[in-house]
């Protein structure tokens, strides 16, 4: 169940997280993350069947707001922080692949 981390697992996870790792980093992180997961074996080994995850520690539910307008931020403020913008929109390099 709690197997130590393999190098290819780390590589796959890095891709999912949009991170590039060098070969050396791949090795280092495989070792370091493996250590943390080893330490986590103590909880992986527990039989916690029937134990339910807790949502909010004090049981808050139904926190909602009324459907009422509030001020938006000005577009200038929004685009001022954009690394690249055009025509009032955020510009990005081409997207490969449609949205899921």
């Amino acid at each position, binding site marked *: 169940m709690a197997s130590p981390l393999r190098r290819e697992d780390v590589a796959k996870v890095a891709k*999912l997280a949009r991170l590039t790792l060098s070969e050396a980093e791949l090795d280092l992180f495989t070792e370091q993350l493996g250590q943390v997961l080893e330490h986590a074996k103590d909880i992986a080994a527990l039989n916690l069947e029937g134990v339910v995850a807790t*949502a*909010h520690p004090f049981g808050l*539910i139904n926190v909602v707001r009324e459907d009422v307008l*509030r001020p938006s931020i000005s577009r200038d403020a929004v685009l001022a922080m954009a690394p690249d913008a055009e025509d009032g*929109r955020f*510009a990005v390099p081409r997207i490969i692949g*449609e*949205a899921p």
Partner: protein
Amino acid sequence: MVVGLEVHTELKTTTKMFCGCANAFGAAPNTQVCPVCLGLPGSLPVLNVRAVDLAMAIGLALHSTIASSTFHRKNYFYPDMPKDYQISQYDLPINAGGYLDLPDGSRVSIERAHLEEDTGKSTHLGGSGRIHGADRSLVDYNRSGVPLVEIVSGPDIRSSAQAHLYASELRGILIATGASDGRMEEGSMRIDANVSVRRVGQPLGTRCEVKNLNSLRSLQRAIDFEAARQFELIESGGTVRQETRHWDENLGATSTMRTKEEADDYRYFREPDLVDVVPDGAWLERVRGTLGAMPAERRATLLARLTSPNAAQLDALEVVVDLGFDDYVLAAIDAKVDAPLAMARAANELAAGIENIANLSRDAFVATLTMEQSGQLSATQAKTVLFELLAHGGEPGDIAKTKGFEQLSTGALSDTVSELIAQHPNEWARYRDGDDKLAQFFIGLVMKFTNGQANGKAVIAELQARR
């Protein structure tokens, strides 16, 4: 073929799902955004209660089980997603199960109808304007955070016609609950189809998801194409690959969307910034109380008031319910207006002025038709009055007076008819001898002479009296 449909509808709330920015179509890009819907560092979501009400209304209309639900994060990177995760619902959706009965008598099961937030919108520059071949893309986050309900049907649909019927009926329900305006062309209602084929009695085949269906007609065409494509593929010894395909309306075909190398692992986990939604009995009853009748029930109610409707009247009935005018028609029928007349005026004149329907009260509609029916107004005049009411509101009686739609006094009419008979002795002779078709001739003359102010029925009465 086996078809399941996933329908996403934007909810007709004033503000977005998790923030107070306006939920409105057509604004200038990035003018309806704030830290929350832009996903700025430090921002937090707060749930819009109206979105929950509308989701529950949809659940009630679809006979779903409405239970406690949680929100989950669906994690993936895409530039139109400000947080690079979407707040959605996963294993505990607000509405689970349910069904939709269609006018053809079939029933389609509903798996779930859950809440989620919409993404921003990207436009692609360079190339064809489609994503492939583009140099860069521009993103507008006005739509980001708009509340959505995603309705997933079971794989119960067996023909493209049934799919069309399902989508149309569902759309009617979404409009009737007040949840949606159902405008596919504006993107407030989006449909994806999951299509597979199999021989009867065999297990389900591999399915493909078809996207980019912008109208009910596209839906039907795309399903037919895709089913045929898969069938031919299998018949020629190939296997259907599970993939997402894009419908091209111009080409009339689906094509593979370029898929990413790695399969999506969304790493769903419970959204820690939101708390559970627990609809208690009082909340449900409040929503149920605001729910009007659904299209099926409204069609049945109206149908019951018609005597031996012909095909044209049945068509009109569909239109009337679809457009939400059935309460006008019922009010008229209750006031002793002929059902076919009421339906015709609703399906035609009201439909034409649907943008301004708020200007026309039921009472005004009923009063106008009552005047038409009694002969005070001709058909043309009645239509004009309705047009005026829709454009500017007001009172039918006042409008009739202003436009000089005075009833021609019986005396004036009688004189007119006499005059015209005298002018056309040959035609009168033929009519008197039994040629009924000439009634129209004289009616036409009277109308022309009186500038349309004569009442057709009254003219006929005059002619017959002198025959």
